[in-house]
């Protein structure tokens, strides 16, 4: 565990950042955005056989307001790009994105007029999963990588500069 606990008398001492990261990394609720065959693998990873809930992806949110990880599984057509952008904008901070499969990463085999060549040019992506489609193990591995990333994050430090700016402006 990332923080030290001193037991007795009901006390718990830890760095606030580590406490926040502990909570965030153990509840990355996914938003399944399945548009093609990768969505089937994602369903398989979420279902009881592979059981993504073991790693904290407990509740699949079907609203962007109540989720942390946007899992884009499948081909994103150019017609769909504004929808994807809007869903990402609707998600509340903190938010992360996993691009599942060749199509979401780079357009895959569909180098055509209708397919967007990789969602990385539209929204920021944290983890890319190669494969066409990747196996459920691949999706679980990506989730573990994302959890590593969340644990190494500095959520308060990022806000510090903003806080300093605000304080100086108040002076």
């Amino acid at each position, binding site marked *: 565990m990332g923080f030290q606990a001193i037991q007795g008398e009901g006390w718990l001492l830890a760095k606030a950042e580590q406490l926040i990261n502990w909570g965030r990394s153990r509840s990355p609720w996914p938003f399944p955005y399945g548009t093609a065959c990768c969505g089937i693998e994602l369903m398989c990873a979420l279902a009881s056989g592979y059981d993504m809930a073991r790693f904290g992806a407990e509740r699949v949110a079907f609203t962007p307001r109540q989720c942390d990880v946007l899992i884009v599984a499948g081909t994103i057509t150019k*017609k769909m790009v504004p929808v994807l952008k809007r869903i990402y904008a609707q998600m509340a901070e903190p938010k992360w994105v996993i691009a599942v499969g060749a199509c979401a990463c780079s357009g895959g085999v569909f180098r055509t007029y209708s397919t967007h060549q990789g969602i990385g040019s539209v929204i920021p992506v944290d983890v890319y999963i190669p494969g066409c489609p990747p196996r459920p193990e691949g999706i679980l591995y990506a989730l573990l990588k994302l959890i590593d990333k969340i644990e190494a994050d500095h959520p308060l430090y990022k806000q510090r500069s903003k806080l300093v700016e605000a304080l100086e402006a108040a002076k």
Partner: protein
Amino acid sequence: MSLKERVQEILGSDLIDLTEFRSDICVEIPKGRLVHVLSRLREDGGFDFLSDIVGIDNLHLYEKKKQKKAKKGQEEESEPERQGPPPPRFEVVYLLLSLKTNERLQVRVRVPEEDMELPTITTVWRAANWPEREVFDMFGIRFKGHPNLRRLLMWDEFQGHPLRKDYPLEGKGEERHLNYDVV
């Protein structure tokens, strides 16, 4: 009476060409008689189901034929070339099915590049609505009298018709923008 004979009887003089390949029958009919022929096939021929409407762009085929003709002309100038209008570039195929007898029929219509309009057959089969919209979207063939002739697959502001052979596979850089992108 076999299907071939029945179709021949129903179409009569409207029949331009009839080919049979492994008992699949394909007929070609003139553009102007489309609605009449199809409604007769529905009423008298028993074809009560419209499976699909397909567009075909024969651009390369006809260009090749033209080049071949030109080569031939250079080699043997004495051979008289058949004069006439160039062959129509597009084709629209109506795939019909009879649910009672389980028979199928292809009906082809040629659409020249100069006059890219066909009458709608939504009056015959209401199911023709979306297939006709798809053909319009992909090939730019307009259907006169269609109740809602908008693009089906591409977004409304899209320019061009992607399944035409002279449209590049990777597109012309079209992107979709919606109003809420600005906010």
